[in-house]
């Protein structure tokens, strides 16, 4: 098992790192199994590529596997070989059953995070002048209407945030509102979760439809306040 030892250790080590080490780094969280599978697949591909770069390494890598499977000169491992032959199909069967059987667990999350806005909202520019007064006013509106969920620090950690799945957006994260134009935010605030298009289903957004409570001007000011408070800039093309 000489040449096979390192790859096996590497695969086990990688799994342990992804499963137990990475989630415990401060600020991290457990990885979903889909991501662990992806990274393990890459690791396995790398091992196969490296071990088959030359004839010698290929023989050293595949040789033991081939000998084990054919039962050629494996001595006391014969029982293990039969065990693998019996367990492997059972494992595949169990996996197949597990992925197709009816379950009472909720389905996998596969919603569209950023559904495309309707045509009438694309390309709108903020009509409110970007003055310190308007920004301050926007922050005030934000504090009153948005911060209970999106947080006073714009980090998605408001007092009501724990009640929602998915959690309210973290505006301080450079991968959220910084990637979007102001017109997108205007649409999302104005129409709320109920206004999401069919492609955004399952909607899973508790965002209120603010158009029934706030005038458009206030919404535009809130957007300015959000960007300023979260230290982000909207996406523009100029």
């Amino acid at each position, binding site marked *: 098992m000489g040449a096979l030892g390192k790859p096996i250790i590497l695969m086990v080590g990688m799994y342990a790192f992804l499963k137990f080490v*990475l989630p415990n*780094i401060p*600020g*991290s*969280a*457990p*990885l*979903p*199994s*889909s*991501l662990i599978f*992806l*990274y393990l697949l*890459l*690791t396995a*591909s*790398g091992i196969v*590529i*490296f071990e*088959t*770069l*030359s*004839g010698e390494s*290929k023989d050293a890598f595949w040789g033991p596997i081939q000998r084990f499977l054919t039962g050629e000169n494996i001595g006391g491992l014969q029982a293990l070989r039969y065990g693998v032959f019996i367990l492997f199909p059972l494992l595949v069967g169990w996996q197949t059953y597990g992925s197709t059987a009816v379950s009472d*667990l*909720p389905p*996998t*999350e*596969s*919603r*569209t*995070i*950023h*559904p*495309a*806005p*309707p*045509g009438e909202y*694309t*390309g709108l520019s903020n009509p409110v002048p970007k003055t310190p007064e308007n920004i301050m006013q926007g922050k005030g509106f934000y504090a009153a209407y948005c911060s209970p969920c999106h947080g006073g620090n714009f980090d998605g950690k408001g007092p009501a945030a724990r009640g929602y*799945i*998915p*959690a309210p957006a973290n505006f301080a*994260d*450079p*991968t959220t509102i*910084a*990637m979007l*134009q102001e*017109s*997108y935010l205007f649409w999302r605030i104005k129409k709320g979760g109920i206004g999401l298009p069919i*492609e955004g289903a399952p909607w899973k957004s508790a965002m209120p439809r603010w158009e029934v409570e706030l005038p458009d001007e206030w919404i535009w000011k809130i957007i300015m306040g959000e960007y300023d408070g979260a230290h982000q*800039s*909207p*996406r*523009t*093309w*100029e």
Partner: protein
Amino acid sequence: MSAIQEVETIQRALRAIRGQERWLVGLLLTAGWFLLPSIGLAAEGAAAGPTEYRDIPYIGSRNLVWIVAQLHLLLAGFVLGVPIFAWLCEVIAWRGGEKRYDKLAKEFTKLLTSAYATTALFGGILLFLLVAFYPKLMNYLTDVFFPSFLVYCLLFLLETATLYLYWYGWDAMQYGKKKTLHVFLGFLLNFFALFIMIVPNAWATFQSSPVVIADGTAFERAWAATWNPTWWPINIHRLIANVVLGGYICGAYAGVRYLSVKSTEDREHYDWMGYVGNFIGVFGLLALPFAGYWLMREIYQYNQQMGITLMGGFLSWLFIIQAMLIGVLFLGSNYYFWLGITYRIPGSEAKYRRAMLMMLVSLLLCLAVWMTPHSLVASIEEAQKMGGAHHPLLGVLGVMSAKMTVSNLMILITFMSFVMYWRAGKQDTAGWAKLGKAVMGAVLVLASLAVIVLGIWGYFVPAIVRINYFSTSQVAIVGFVILTITPLTALLLKSAKTTTEMVWGSMPPRAGYALVLNAVMVILLMTLMGYARSSSRVHWHVYGVLRDTSPYAYSPALGSASLIMAFCTFFFCILVAFIFWVATMGDKYKATAGSGKGELPHGIPAMAGGAPDERQQG
């Protein structure tokens, strides 16, 4: 009835109709004319106004048009990519005197006549289907683009004439001291081919990013519609992609032949051909992400809705699949280079194994970043533990700044793989070799660091700064590395001593399989991107202008779309295999029977594309 009797019967039948061809053609055309309205039997009810759509049972009009259009596009990519590839090889042979490049160019040009006819055939079928199934859309497009339809027809005539001159005149011009004229014809062939590609690109891109002007002449309206925001990005992207397709298909062909040939001479030839195909494919591949990025940028700028549909909306998962396919392509191409170092240059493995490991690990890390989605597939419990669909630590890898950074690094790694292959088996003798290598090393390290720093910095600046300055700087840095290291390496190797001669024909079978895998990945990628481009219009025939009101005005889910993509890939591979088989049939016959076309059975016409070889080889 024996086979000989059958052949005689066919020959008698062919002789019997000799002189009656006009009658037969007329009869067939009349029958076709009378059968044409049968398509209308599937029309939707008896509408009061003009028919807007027709359908066919079972497969559906949309799926049929999708498959035929995709196959036509793949074939078009092949017939436009192969002449570029062949012409480059011919120029190398012409200027450098290496005859094997000329042989390679000719071998691939031989494919063109049959491939060209097949492409035109699928183009014709596509046109008939579009006219039959989408009369309203075709009326509208004809109204906008009528002048360019005429230009397209003219281009086809010019391309066909040039192709025939180029192929049938190959030997006559080569041995008649008119090689320069032949090379010029090759240039013309590619020149017309370029325009044959960009004219229909205008029609397709108009559907995505239309520019409609109400006033003006027919020409002015067509010109405004042609010069739409995504026309040139698509032109450049497809041009490069065609070179990549041509290169990798050449590689796959060489790979298949390599696996089956018996003689040492053939093994050496197809091993070398595989190397050339992979080389051209890789060098096109290095530029392709930049062209793709430019295209996406233009789409985003043209319409935020379309941009979000593609990159953040319901099509965003498609780009994770794209990353996986490109990842396999990068791995496959590098693997082939590394196998070349190990097997073709004996003794190099020990020297380069560590470097190959480093490159492999770097490539895999980059791939891991590229394949990490922003919004993860997670069960409800997993999402709860993460606090949403984004992982708090790895979520940052899911956005463009990270993707651009790793794609640039992967390009650098692949380029260095080639440089390593180029240098293997050679010893520097130049006095400045040490300094030169130090400069190259410094350029590479500093460039890699700069690309990474810009990538991280990209998270802390407005999107427009990242897109307009940081991403373009990353591309410029990688371009600078390639433009610096290539001439320096060439200069170094000019005076270098060859310590180990390259041994062609010594690659293991898995190298051949890697070449085939690369070609399949490119074809799959093209089918995937075809779906992306078309689906980004959502329920519009012409985005924002002409709405799709057919029952098919919905985007198929990625799962069902992938079935069509897989079918198109499989069928295209079969078609290409058929074209290769047809084009090389004459050679095989000659090799086994030892005779030329003079000995073909009477009554069976000599195949197009098989002539010049036999004429001159004797």
